[in-house]
């Protein structure tokens, strides 16, 4: 009886409340429009303009899609796309494997395991610029710790940051070092949501640890793992800070990624038109990946 009254009363108050709730949303909405949507539209406009800030204080006119054509034909852009695909592809796969493996090893509530977990997530809170700086010293071929330690194993370490191929490997190492803990945390959270009874009854039926991983954990966590993979892929593609302090895109253009290429185009050469065009090419790809993330989340939520 009182429930019915409450429902009625809520309905009656709803319209009055709506104004209040909308007022709560307004400040955030204004800020998002001013700082996100307006610059986005501005950037779409810039992509059609011939404007290099170092030679002119205002745009030198509409050039249609010429900026896009110039970017697509640019050697450095093509190399940056390849580098991005290589770095992100390799790094994210390694992070998923290592993060999932470590999560399984780090399950538990004993003191040692808890302390281990605390240590393992430290790279997540370190500024990427500082992580890049730190690995710049670690990977110095002559004076760095990495090659010094490899020397004890009788291995002559490579010229990590000076050789084009090894520089790409270095960027991957730093990405893996920084963000494997993220995968670890998400998988740990996913594991804790799987009921223990499932594993117990599987063990009673004689299933090995490996079998219960393949037949219980993987299917149950598949949406989460896929989502984590996509999150990591997007974040890795967008990362700039650690590459900036680790290699500055070098040697030469060896570690130019899409983000780094757009950064130098826009904020070093101040070619605003081309930078905006490159951004929108990059954006169309990121949006596709995002739509996938979104679709997965919805599907997963309705499945639960």
């Amino acid at each position, binding site marked *: 009886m009182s429930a019915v009254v409450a429902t009625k009363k809520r309905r009656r108050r709803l319209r009055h409340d709506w104004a209040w*709730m909308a007022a709560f949303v307004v400040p955030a909405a204004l800020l998002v429009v001013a700082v996100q949507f307006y610059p986005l539209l501005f950037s779409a406009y810039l992509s059609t303009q011939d404007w290099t800030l170092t030679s002119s204080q205002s745009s030198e006119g509409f050039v249609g899609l010429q900026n896009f054509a110039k970017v697509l034909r640019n050697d450095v852009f093509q190399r940056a796309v390849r580098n991005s695909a290589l770095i992100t592809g390799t790094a994210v796969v390694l992070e998923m494997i290592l993060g999932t493996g470590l999560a399984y090893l780090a399950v538990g509530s004993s003191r040692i395991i808890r302390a281990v977990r605390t240590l393992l997530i430290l790279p997540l809170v370190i*500024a990427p610029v500082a992580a890049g700086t730190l690995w710049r010293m670690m990977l110095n071929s002559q004076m760095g710790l990495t090659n010094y330690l490899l020397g004890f194993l009788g291995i002559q370490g490579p010229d990590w940051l000076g050789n084009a191929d090894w520089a790409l490997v270095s960027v991957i190492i730093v990405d893996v070092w920084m963000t494997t803990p993220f995968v670890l*945390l998400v998988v740990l959270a996913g594991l804790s949501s799987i009921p223990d009874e499932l594993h117990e009854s599987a063990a009673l039926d004689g299933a090995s640890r490996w079998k219960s991983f393949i037949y219980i954990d993987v299917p149950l966590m598949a949406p989460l793992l896929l989502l984590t993979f996509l999150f990591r892929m997007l974040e890795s593609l967008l990362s700039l800070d650690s590459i900036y302090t680790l290699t500055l895109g070098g040697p030469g253009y060896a570690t130019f990624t899409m983000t780094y290429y757009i950064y130098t185009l826009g904020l070093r050469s101040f070619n605003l038109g081309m930078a905006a065009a490159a951004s929108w090419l990059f954006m169309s790809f990121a*949006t596709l990946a995002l739509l996938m993330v979104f679709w997965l989340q*919805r599907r997963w939520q309705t499945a639960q």
Partner: protein
Amino acid sequence: MSGGSFTKVIQRSLRLLALAIACLVVLVPLGYLLLNSVKPQNEMYTIPPIIFPSHITFEHFEAAFNNPRTLRFLTNSLTVTGITTAVTVVVSTMAAYGLSRMGLRASVLSLIVFVFLFIRFYPRITTVIPYFLVMRQLALLDTVWAVIIGHLGITIPFVTWLMLIVFQDLPREVEEAAEVDGASPLQRFGLVALPMAAPGVASAAILTAFLSWNEFLIASSVTKRQAQVLSIAVASFVTDRGVQWGPMAAMAVIMIVPMILFALFVQRYLIRGITLGAVKG
């Protein structure tokens, strides 16, 4: 000892060994950074390298703090992080509460969630240049406000999204009871919903602080001298001609050690915040 428990002991040792290696991979680079920040200049560039310094020196830290610019980097970083966090938490918590209690249709709400996701993951570099031009127009270039507003543009949608998840998970009964008792919308928000959402608010605030403190791209694009923050100070050593490992390591330590200590202190909230977005969505 039976065969079964023997393999168990082996398994346990292997597990601890693997975890120990993982911990070393995390700790050794951090330890190396610390050692370099207290290593005397003449032991820095030897081949083969001297890993453990013969004595500990604080000359790099002294040099850093004798430079008035370092103090400015530090106060700018603190100002930017403090204001960004405070404004984000207030504005986003209110917005998330409003969105979750407006009775929006599910399709509208998922569209809004998509916008939040989009803002979090589209290539930030796209808006950095237009943002730079806008700040130039407003004569805000090289002020902390340009950095703060830029950070708010990232943190407000992100935290609103997180808090939306938190508020949607809260039981409505208490709020409905308060409503029947005549509580105004403001009272229901401040006195009923907010205390229940407090752990979520703490996670959101902590994540915002880390994001703002560590951010580099926006800060580097809208500042020149006056408003530079620690991330730029750390990055600036890269372009210097000579190798300056001591000062570079000291500056990195100044930037990351407070955050590591903070992270240890608030670990539980931090982890909850990091996993919330990924697990719940």
